[in-house]
């Protein structure tokens, strides 16, 4: 320790300017990245906030109205219904997705040619776009021309055709199943990378000590994949809070407007009612909610061991 500090003092000239110059150099290196962030993130964000302070029609001139858009939100039942539905959907889909993804990850974590084949199969739906997957699902769920309804009838589950998309429960579950089918492979890969990084000795030691499968999963696997799990959770929650395509394409927010999500509400305000200012204000609020949610999740899942 002493040796090191002495040698530093001897050989490195005491230049207080050097770190500053290094900082300046560093700034030059990150400048392109900063410029990208500024142009594609900060400027649009600033514009959104700016627009949210205006009565901003799609055509015509904006008018400054201060915080009136934010004030209006409190009395907008449509917005709160949309938020409530979005939260409901987020909880259900996150549990479903991470549960299925964890199951898949446990199944495909080992090596082998057959395993690689299954991994690919499970991952395949991820590369479809949400819009195309939704269109596919809308067609499959169509009562007259689709697959699900006639199949259920043939299997004797119902005696008459049921329009899945016409009732909240069936419509909601139809979309949820689609999202799980489409996205589980993505979270599987994240969780799998975590599982593979666990040294196998831990597992062996626990096994020798007589720990059951569940005990090993709970006390060895879960704590050790905390970080990839936190990543998957934050991605899944924020992705679900921003859900739009599937509800717009498959359900049109129906039946009875029960599946209008927060982003759908923002879309309606901005591009159906042409109130861009109000739409921007809603976006800003949604952004703040998302930031808070993500911060809470990251805090809860912070690796306390590593922090010490």
């Amino acid at each position, binding site marked *: 320790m002493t040796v090191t500090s002495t040698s530093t003092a001897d050989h490195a000239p005491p230049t207080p300017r050097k770190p500053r110059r290094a900082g300046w150099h560093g700034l030059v290196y990150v400048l392109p990245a900063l410029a990208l962030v500024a142009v594609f993130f900060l400027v649009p964000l600033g514009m959104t906030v700016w627009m949210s302070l205006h009565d901003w029609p*799609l*055509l*015509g*001139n904006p008018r400054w109205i201060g915080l009136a858009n934010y004030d209006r939100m409190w009395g907008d039942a449509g917005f709160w219904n949309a938020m409530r539905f979005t939260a409901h959907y987020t909880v259900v889909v996150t549990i479903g997705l991470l549960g299925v993804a964890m199951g898949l990850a446990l199944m495909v974590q080992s090596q082998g040619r057959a395993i690689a084949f299954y991994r690919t199969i499970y991952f395949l739906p991820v590369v479809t776009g949400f819009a195309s997957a939704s269109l596919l699902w809308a067609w499959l769920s169509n009562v007259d021309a689709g697959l699900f309804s006639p199949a259920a009838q043939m299997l004797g589950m119902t005696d008459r055709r049921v*329009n899945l998309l*016409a009732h909240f429960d069936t419509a909601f579950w139809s979309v949820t199943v689609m999202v799980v089918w489409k996205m589980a492979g993505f979270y599987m890969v994240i969780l799998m990378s975590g599982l593979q990084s666990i040294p196998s000795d831990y597992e062996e030691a626990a096994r020798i000590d007589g720990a059951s499968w569940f005990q090993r999963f709970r006390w060895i696997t879960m704590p050790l994949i905390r970080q990839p799990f936190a990543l998957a959770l934050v991605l899944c929650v924020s992705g679900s809070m921003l859900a739009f395509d599937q509800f717009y394409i498959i359900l049109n927010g129906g039946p009875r407007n029960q599946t*209008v999500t927060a982003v759908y509400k923002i879309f309606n305000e901005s591009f*159906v009612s042409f109130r861009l200012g109000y739409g921007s204000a809603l976006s800003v609020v949604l952004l703040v909610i998302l930031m808070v949610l993500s911060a809470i999740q990251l805090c809860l899942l912070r690796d306390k061991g590593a922090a010490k």
Partner: protein
Amino acid sequence: MNFRTLTSSFALATLGLGALPGIGAAETFSLWVRSDGSEFMPPLVEAFNAMGEHEANLQIVPVDELVQRYAIASAGGSAPDALSLDLIYTPAFAEAGQLRDMTDFAQGLPYFDSLSPAHLSVGTVNDRIFGVPFSGDASFLLWNKDLYEQVGLDPEAGPTTWAEIADHASAISELGDETYGFYFSGNCGGCNIFTFAPLIWATGDSMLSEDGRTAMLDSDGTVAAIDFYRGMVNEGLVPAGSQTDSGANFFAAFANGNVGISPSGSFAIGALNNNYPDLNYGVAFLPGQDEGQFSSFAGGDNFVISAGTDDSKIPAIEAFIEFAYSLEGQQILVANGAVPVRSDLAEDVFEGLDERYLISAEAMANGRTPYTTVFNDIINSRNGPWITTLNRAFFAESEEEMMQAIEDGQAEMQAIIDAAY
């Protein structure tokens, strides 16, 4: 956002129709039309460009996106020079300062007095004309003559009252095997203002007051018309998919040939004749409860010029408008499903065309154009009170459920109107 969501069935792609550059003061101008015009606009532009003097560059825009795309293009300084605009939007565009004043040009036309008054009235803001009539779009019933014949109904006599619609539909549904008596898009606001509202108007009632400030979803005529549709749904005369059809099947269901009767519009004549020449269909008015009553939606496009369009392009654009108003232009429009907007030429225009075109024009003449500044919010929106109420009520299992839906919808619609005025 539109009266009908025909988008899915037609040209989503942009369509550029070029021609050889002309001579002299030839000008090229850009022209937009919503996808509903994809039957009549391309042949008209082609004929105009073939004259070789000027050139119109046509772009077909999906009907749901027209307003947004225009606003974005306009903000970026690349608005189209001219536009065939859904007449409902003309006042909003004009008030936002987006359109060029066309008063002098319009009033200078020798046949100005015979141009469609309904179009001109929405095209006029503060006594200045910002949009001139371009194409008309009426709504009516289509019936499949082959299916009528199969079940022993007179194939030349379409339904003239609600009761007849239900009777005929019931007879055709007897055929079974995926054949249904009646089809409507049960989750499409635009489709239903276009084809269901006229059933209400035919009774003399309405779902919205003349000045657009009072919601009347609970009026007697509205409730009766809703109950009429609900009855047909209950009896199984309508395919189950109708309940969740947000317009994708509005046209396709009838065109496929296994639906007896379906409400539709002028555009369907062009589309059916051009694309389904074997379908044997008739056109009847959208009737009321009693014999002799009928109505229609009076829709269509106004032709407008963007405020920022360069003066040098105006002669070319005016030449295009005058070409559309010429006998040849009107004939092209009519043959492809549009209702003509120049009444003094009607006799020549309809010469040689069958009765279906005449019914379409007569329906238009008896049509209504509801106007309210919150049209999109209450009528066209997929989540607005108009379609939400109709959807709940049409497919309600009991009368109480239907009345509850109507009551809720009435309150919601009035609340939106009140907030706007």
